[in-house]
């Protein structure tokens, strides 16, 4: 296997530009990991892109599928990959061989933005490999200035590949691949917020033989005791505790969203199967922050490539080409809301608001349209604010806090729905509230439904019960059934999903032979 990373030395002129652009970016306040650029041929670029940005992944047809799509659209000139960057320390990014110098500079500038985001945004802290569960909430956001976190994901992914290859040698390609498919089918059943706390000591299991818990008493000197802790009160409390203890223990103790972890700990898996599932779970968590901050991350990188290119790196002969590329990246309308465009415009909107002091009570309370239009307190806080935003927010919070009615009008946003009558998607409304709700809904949990493991001993028969926290939109029923089938493959006992269809509580069940669906409570 080739040692990736520093395989291709960067040509001198590109290295010069890398240094210049990085120096300018640092002067502008960006703070990023050391960067390594590699130049790849278009086919290699497609390969790396199909591997999710990594030089090596475990063998699976899914990468081949992505590769075919990328290659075909590249070969027939439909699209081109401009840039790929990996959240790794050092940060590795790829340049495509044969692109013009303007393109390469654009990519370098863009990568500086991504890299700064990877390093500073708190959501990416879960990709620190030397992370310790935080003692206090503040620990999660305070950036450690003393040393850089360990993020050797390229190595980790290569190790995963080696592990899976070994299993394939031992148990056969098809058997392992089939199990990987099952895991992929379940890979969105993870719990990113809880990942931060992973590794914390678990609360001790109550000891069966331990003497019954004492009823807590209020402190009182001897002669007052019978007044402050009256007998009847103590007896009532005693009874309550006994009842609590007599309740059947639940399994899992509390519903958990990290179904993969639950399966790892409790499903009857072979050793190699456990290892595969662990790898898939690990990689799913790696990609999660990127999904969680797509708009912010791309917006931030676009904001900076535009600042760096127009303010420093382009000369007059290159500016047209740059503008053309930039327009291509920012383009798209109709149903496709371009995250690059949305992100960059929202940052600019925030910058303008904080520069002009358009925030706070005074601004909120102002109803005079003319005043609002010419509002300018000349605070100049914009740049500071957006740096703060890039560190402390994720997409959901970003939209929730900074999307304004003015912005929606300016950017011509609308919501659309499927029209059964006309058999097509149609514009629904341009109302601010509706747009915001829809956007937030799409971004929450990255468009994934919330699924909890409710009971690992359902009906006292060792069956698995999952619950879908229904928030107004039904699941895809067919896909749900197929997924249950895969879940059965792991749990090896009947699996049930409690959800709703058309407003009715429904239980979908797969018992290893057939699917059943019945109304709950009947």
């Amino acid at each position, binding site marked *: 296997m080739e040692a990736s990373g520093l395989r291709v030395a960067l040509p001198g002129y590109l290295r010069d530009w890398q240094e210049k652009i990085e120096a300018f970016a640092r002067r502008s306040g960006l703070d990023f990991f050391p960067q390594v650029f590699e130049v790849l041929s278009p086919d290699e670029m497609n390969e790396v892109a199909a591997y999710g940005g990594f030089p090596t992944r475990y063998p699976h047809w899914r990468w081949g599928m992505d590769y075919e799509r990328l290659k075909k659209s590249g070969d027939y000139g439909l699209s081109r990959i401009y840039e790929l960057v990996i959240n790794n320390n050092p940060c590795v990014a790829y340049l495509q061989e044969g692109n013009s110098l303007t393109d390469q500079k654009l990519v370098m500038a863009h990568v500086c933005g991504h890299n700064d985001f990877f390093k500073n945004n708190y959501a990416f802290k879960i990709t620190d490999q030397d992370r310790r569960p935080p003692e206090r909430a503040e620990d999660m956001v305070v950036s450690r200035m003393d040393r850089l976190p360990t993020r050797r994901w390229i190595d980790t992914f290569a190790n995963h590949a080696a592990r899976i290859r070994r299993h394939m040698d031992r148990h056969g390609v098809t058997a392992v691949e089939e199990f990987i498919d099952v895991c992929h089918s379940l890979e*969105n059943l993870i719990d990113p917020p809880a990942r931060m706390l992973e590794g914390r000591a678990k609360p001790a299991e109550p000891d069966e033989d331990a003497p019954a818990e004492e009823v807590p008493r209020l402190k009182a000197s001897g002669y007052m005791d019978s007044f402050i802790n009256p007998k009847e009160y103590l007896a009532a409390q005693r009874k309550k505790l006994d009842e609590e203890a007599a309740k059947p223990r639940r399994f899992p103790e509390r519903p958990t969203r990290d179904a993969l972890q639950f399966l790892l700990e409790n499903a009857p898996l072979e050793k190699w199967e456990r290892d595969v599932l662990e790898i898939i779970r690990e990689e799913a968590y790696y990609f999660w922050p990127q999904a969680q901050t797509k708009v912010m991350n791309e917006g931030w990188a676009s904001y900076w490539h535009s600042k760096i290119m127009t303010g420093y790196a382009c000369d007059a002969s290159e500016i047209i080409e740059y503008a053309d590329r930039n327009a291509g990246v920012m383009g798209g309308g109709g149903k496709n809301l371009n995250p690059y465009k949305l992100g960059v415009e929202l940052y600019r909107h925030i910058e303008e608001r904080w520069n002009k002091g358009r925030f706070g009570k005074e601004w909120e309370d102002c109803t005079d349209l003319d005043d609002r239009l010419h509002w300018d307190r000349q605070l100049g806080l914009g740049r500071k604010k957006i740096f703060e935003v890039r560190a402390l927010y994720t997409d959901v919070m970003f939209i929730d806090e900074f999307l304004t009615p003015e912005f929606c009008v300016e950017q011509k946003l609308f919501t659309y729905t499927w029209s059964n009558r006309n058999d097509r998607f149609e514009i629904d409304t341009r109302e601010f509230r509706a747009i915001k709700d829809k956007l937030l809904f799409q971004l929450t949990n990255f468009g994934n439904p919330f699924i909890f493991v409710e009971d690992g001993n359902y009906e006292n028969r060792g069956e698995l019960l999952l619950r879908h926290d229904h928030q107004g939109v039904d699941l895809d029923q067919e896909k749900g059934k197929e997924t249950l089938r895969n879940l059965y493959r792991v749990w090896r006992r009947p699996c049930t999903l409690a959800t709703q269809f058309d407003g009715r509580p429904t239980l979908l069940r797969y018992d290893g032979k057939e699917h059943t669906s019945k109304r709950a409570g009947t």
Partner: protein
Amino acid sequence: MALKIDQDHARFRDIVKGRIRENLKRYISSGDLVARQGKDTVSIPVPQIDLPRFRFGEKQSGGVGRGEGDQGQPVDGGEEGEGEGGKGKAGQDAGQHALEVEVALDELAKILGEELALPRIEPRGKARIVADKDKYTGIQRQGPESLRHFRRTYREALKRLISAGNYDPKRPAIVPIREDRRYRGWSTSVQPVANAVIVYMMDVSGSMGDEQKEIVRIESFWLDTWLRSQYQGLESVYVIHDAAAREVDRDTFFRTRESGGTMISSAYKLCAEILAKRYPASEWNVYPFHFSDGDNWSVDDTLQCIEILKTRILPAANMFCYGQVESPYGSGQFVKDLREHLGKDERVVTSEIRDKDAIMGSIKEFLGKGR
């Protein structure tokens, strides 16, 4: 340069072709990449396998878009909308930029080869069969001891010792263990069997207008071009007919303009003679194609055609393809007769070609895979 991903890609192609992992077949959908050439759009097939997972029903959700328009107006936008969520890749495409560029039509012609193939091709005759070839192509972790690759095995052992810190340059004793062993791996490449002949028959009678002839020429031209590029040593025979039939060369076939009555049986007779004389069924895969506007001279002649097909052509052929062009003059009766008499025969494929746009679909009907 060979890429690591080629293996994954080959695996994916095998799944799509149904060679392995048949249980995945139900998840395969045919995605399309849509290219624009001026006003025309061309779609490039890109098969896709979507593994099931818990996700929202699609059409219920809708999304947020950007642009002009009033309430109730349709929204356009490609299939790969960001708003559609759950594309199955948890944000793995972070940091890819895509630009849309226009594409030339002739470039697209190439891909068709992948989707089309001669149906029911069988190894026949000995003279021209291209044999299966085994070739040592790589290194594997398991295999017979006779194929053990000493140098690679030794190298693995060395690597293991060094990384474990057990290597002593002064006493370099290297003993490979089981995990270090490497073996030569081979792969078998299968060449398509090329012992095939295509007989193109075209109706050039007066009832075929210029437009109809044009359609037939375009269709047979593309058929011919693709089949030639796909199979080495493929032979072609060209026959044109009005009331009488004659064999012509390729150039004449695509250029000639004639007029007269129509006796389809004349062409079939000639075809049967050529096959019997030059391409015996024991040695050749035979594919006769016939194009006409479906207007035959008489019912008797039609019956005679069917007789010839049944007794002389079909027994010798792998398949018989009939393409009928719609014409303002022709009755279009012939295709109905064929279907009536031979509709149950799997070897007979009929296709009606309404206009130029239907050519592609018709070629797919003839040569589409899975027949």
